[in-house]
């Protein structure tokens, strides 16, 4: 840690990991309700638990991004954060808002647009926090050295905060409501968040592999160009069946096919950088998460996304468990794993000690990744059967669901693995104070060029 103010990232990461725990426990409960539907059905119905599950996810990922920005912007800009106090105020607003939202959901106060259910005061709180953040980070950025990593990170963060405005726009016309709703949802996860992801991944590669900055930054611009060129018009794949014109079927199919490209490029980028890099960085866990993130993002967002994005396919699979399969693996690979990569890299530095809990951390990677892969497969099988029975044969929804019990049981099992992995990750980050497996001796090889 080169700058004192980077320390604020620590508080962000702690809050993020707390919400991460809530998110996966909520997910586990949802998985159990699928298996045993009478569970808590009168006290805590499915829709309430699902709001907690999805909202906690979104907020903790954002907290991770904000924390990552507070960590890497000083280092890239070569100066302290404009105001540490503002950064803590921003965090306090977000934490109070999130807990307020969860509390409101539990007593039945919420909006009804999926993922944007937060009460109005919480939405305003998020807006205020976003403004504070942009102000604070932009002033730091403008005063210091500008790099491609911070250029791209700032572009992504500015655009994602601006798109939040659409969370306040809720037309009475349902089809218009849906169209503008995607301005937040799609243009976050399939456009602006990808910029943030690329920037953080680029930063991690720079630090972990020691590859020349010029090489990394050129890659980054190409990656984010493919992300926005495909992702903006790729929004069309959400406009097929909501009342929008038919031409979106072609625009959406063509451009969302290209949405695979940035994810393939990020995976290639990560592996090529590690291949070229001569640095033997001691933090193997952060490296594993970085490579794992880009790989699983390629499969979850790229492959599973393409699986059902062509309009001729989506006509039959839209709104089935296929979507759930894709959603889980894409979020896990692209954004959860990337955040955990950043935590794994930064936490030892923030706490000023060697990364000596790596074996448990890496075990948690395989436990979580294995669990998520298994979950994706079971949901894909369930979705395939559902698509055939419901959309081709025309059997009724509940009759079909009754045939899918085995898959939901297996999904619950994989959920246990994910929760154990998540808890193990948090434990390895916060509790363990020694390495559980002694590493072998360091072999001195070729000279290690720095960045």
């Amino acid at each position: 840690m080169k700058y004192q103010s980077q320390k604020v990232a620590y508080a962000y990461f702690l809050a993020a990991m707390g919400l991460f725990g809530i998110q996966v426990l909520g997910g586990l409960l949802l998985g159990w309700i699928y298996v045993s539907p009478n569970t808590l059905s009168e006290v805590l119905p499915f829709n309430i638990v699902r709001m907690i599950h999805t909202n906690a996810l979104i907020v903790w990922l954002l907290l991770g991004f904000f924390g990552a920005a507070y960590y890497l912007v000083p280092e890239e800009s070569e100066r302290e954060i404009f105001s540490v106090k503002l950064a803590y105020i921003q965090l306090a607003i977000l934490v109070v808002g999130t807990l307020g939202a969860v509390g409101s959901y539990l007593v039945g106060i919420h909006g009804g647009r999926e993922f944007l259910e937060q009460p109005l005061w919480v939405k305003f709180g998020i807006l205020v926090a976003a403004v504070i953040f942009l102000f604070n980070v932009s002033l730091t950025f403008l005063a210091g050295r500008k790099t491609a990593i911070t250029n791209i990170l700032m572009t992504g963060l500015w655009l994602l905060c601006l798109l939040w405005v659409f969370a306040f726009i809720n037309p009475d016309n349902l089809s218009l409501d849906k169209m503008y709703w995607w301005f937040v949802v799609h243009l976050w996860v399939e456009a602006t968040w990808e910029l943030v992801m690329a920037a953080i991944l680029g930063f991690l590669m720079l630090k972990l592999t020691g590859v020349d900055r010029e090489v990394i930054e050129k890659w980054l611009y190409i990656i984010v160009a493919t992300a926005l060129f495909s992702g903006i018009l790729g929004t069309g794949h959400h406009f097929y069946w909501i009342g929008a014109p038919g031409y979106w079927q072609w625009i959406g199919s063509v451009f969302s096919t290209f949405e695979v490209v940035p994810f393939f490029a990020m995976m290639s980028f990560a592996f090529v950088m590690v291949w070229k890099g001569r640095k033997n960085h001691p933090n193997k866990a952060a490296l594993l998460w970085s490579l794992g993130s880009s790989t699983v993002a390629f499969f979850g967002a790229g492959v599973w996304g393409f699986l059902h994005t062509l309009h001729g396919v989506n006509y039959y699979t839209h709104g089935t468990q296929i979507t759930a399969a894709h959603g889980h693996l894409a979020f896990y690979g692209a954004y959860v794993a990337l955040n955990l990569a950043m935590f794994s890299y930064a936490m030892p530095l923030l706490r000023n000690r060697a990364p000596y809990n790596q074996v448990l951390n890496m075990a948690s990677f395989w436990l979580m990744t294995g669990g998520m892969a298994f979950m994706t497969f079971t949901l894909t099988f369930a979705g395939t059967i559902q698509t055939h029975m419901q959309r081709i044969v025309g059997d009724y929804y509940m009759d079909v669901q009754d045939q899918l019990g085995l898959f939901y049981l297996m999904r619950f099992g994989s959920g246990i693995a994910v929760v154990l992995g998540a808890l193990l990750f948090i434990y390895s980050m916060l509790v363990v104070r020694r390495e559980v497996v002694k590493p072998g001796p360091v072999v001195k090889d070729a000279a290690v060029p720095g960045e």
Partner: protein
Amino acid sequence: MSELLTKSRARNVFYGGSIFFVVVFVALTAQSHRHIVDKATAGMPLTEEVRLGKHVWERHSCINCHTLHGEGAYFAPEVGNVMTRWGAQGDPELAYEILDGWMKAQPSGIEGRRQMPHFEITEEEMRALAEFLRWADQTDTQNWPPNDAG
């Protein structure tokens, strides 16, 4: 390639190209907005009752179990075409009666069956919700879903 595509050229391609695609997207969105209002949802007037129905739908977070035009949670049936499925799309009174009867019977309490919660909804709100679902059903969704099962 490395001589042709320098870092600053890559950056310019990124910024310039993104602005181009944003402009195209905004233009198409504006056209889609008009299409939705003038054509796709014009089959039934967007009355105060339909508006109220949408708020009832939102206040109870129905979307976090059901799908509507295929979007939402996947825990409960699609409702974008539920009025067609019930044979009530052309009959507001029948639509209200079936919906009211169904929702008042929840939760069923049947062991091993997914439970729909009980909602406190007045008659006015229930009629509005039925109208909202009929209004959603008349939307031109490019013939989705493939069949009445939703």
